[in-house]
């Protein structure tokens, strides 16, 4: 009987500890930077880092995703992760537009902190506005294949003319 009482006591204590350690009064989030500007050229790959922090004293789950799903060439390195209290994590956002993408694009990277526990859960999230400018890559004239063919043709014509002049 005594052992049973002690056992119940220990289990209750452990439950209390578990409850107290997982107790969270609010859901907070820290995200840096608040805005992202990207300027790139076609065919180029660019990456930016985002730091996500958990300012709360309980473990929180985080999700990162792109709001505008029509832009499928923005990739998130870690779309889902959890952070211990006061822990931070750096995630990478990769911009790899297809060759034909030129112009200005707007998207939002959403970072949300949640602690689901049944019922009606509250989460806090940050939307990072992203402005991307993609310009056509400026090809140097001497790397243009048509220009090279013309120069070689011109040189051949000059050499032929010189040869004919010598023979005559």
């Amino acid at each position, binding site marked *: 009987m005594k052992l049973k009482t002690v056992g119940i006591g220990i289990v209750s204590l452990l439950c209390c500890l578990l409850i107290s350690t997982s107790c*969270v*009064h*609010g*859901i*907070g*989030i*820290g*995200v*840096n*930077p*608040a*805005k992202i500007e990207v300027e790139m050229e076609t065919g180029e790959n660019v990456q930016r880092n985002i*730091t996500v*922090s958990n*300012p*709360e*004293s309980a473990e929180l789950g985080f999700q990162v995703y792109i709001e505008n799903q029509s832009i499928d060439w923005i990739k998130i390195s870690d779309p889902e992760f959890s952070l211990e209290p006061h822990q931070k994590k750096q995630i990478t956002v990769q911009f790899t537009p297809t060759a034909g993408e030129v112009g200005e694009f707007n998207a*939002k990277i*959403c970072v*949300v902190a*949640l*602690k*689901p*526990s*049944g*019922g*009606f*859960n*509250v*989460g*806090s*999230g*940050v*939307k*990072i*506005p992203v402005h991307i400018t993609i310009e056509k890559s400026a090809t140097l004239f001497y790397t243009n294949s048509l220009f090279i063919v013309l120069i070689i043709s011109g040189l051949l014509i000059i050499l032929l003319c010189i040869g004919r002049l010598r023979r005559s």
Partner: protein
Amino acid sequence: MEKSRMFVAFAAICVVFGTAGMVSAHQTWVEIDAMCIDLDSTVDVRLTEGHNFIPEGAPPFDVSAELVDPAGAITPLNKTDEDELYWHSGFDADQIGLYAILGLHVDESWWKVYTGPGSRPDRPDSLYTYFPGEVNWSEINKTNWADDWHVVRHYKPYKYSKAFVSTNCNFSGTDRAFEQPLEIIPLDDVATIGTGDFDFQVLWNGTPLPNGTIAITGTKDNETKVSAICDGEGKATLPLNISCDWLITANAADDSAYWDGEYNVTLPHGANYTGPGGFVGNDHRAALTLLEIRECDTVTMRAEIRSGIRFSVTPAYLDFGKLDPGDISAPETVVIHNMWSKDLKATVEVTDTNGLYTEGLYINSSLWSEFETVVLKDGYASPNAELRVPEDFTGSGEMEGTIIFWAEAI
């Protein structure tokens, strides 16, 4: 004759104790463990007296304290215990925001007497001797005293102390007066204590005293102190360049500075004293305890955190209770706290699987999708959420769903 000898011995003991008192009991201040605390935590409030920010004993005679909560309500902090070093009290911090702890220690009356060079064998450099309570001037031993000994001040000390704690690490509002008779007001952000010049203002009943009346001192320990004299607006700047806990104290700049009493020419004095007499009245001094913000730990860390969006939503769960179709729940207040250095825009997104929340959640009496507000930097928004269960809702049991409060740079 025997009685006379006993009185001399008693007077000598008084001098020794008076000396000890002068050395070790100048200041009374509030001690707390941290300025940033968790919501619903219990705050241990301690009042102590000592010197150089080192506690040396529980303040004697009349001690009291009161609490100003984030809503502005004032409640007394009752004494819960007393030990060798501290007068103890405490409270449960169950509100979000800033709490101010105000202490008052009214000590017994003291005499400050000019007794001349060499009058105190224990402190050869001191020109003054201190006596508590009543003194029989005709019987006291004046063997080593100067011929022009005289009472400089006869005063009753009133020691006002103050400290702050915050459940969200937001200290806006510390720069207002909490109506202590003599009060030190930090004009800069107390969370930046120890990072450089810090401006203070000292007010007497809400107004500054004349230029030069008040001296303000920042004390780290017995080796590190900085002082300044308050100007005509009661303002002074202290170079608090070391990241640590600081005790800020304010009192009369010198013996000629007084504001609650008057000079009295009839006070006891030696045969050769020809001066104007001594001050008789109350002595007021103030102390403000400022602790290093340990949650953020370093300045580098703080700067990094402030560079990005940081905000929180409280509570973590919304429980609208048991409702029937057609019912409207009691409103639940949600606090959105912007801890960023810029204003941000807050919106809401609700998801569920049964339409209860997406169709029935109202914020500030409008459907959740219409909610949008600007939360100022270091500020709050406190929208009310209520659940209006549609009349034709057929679901039952615990309904799951999620509400996300989105923040975005403006």
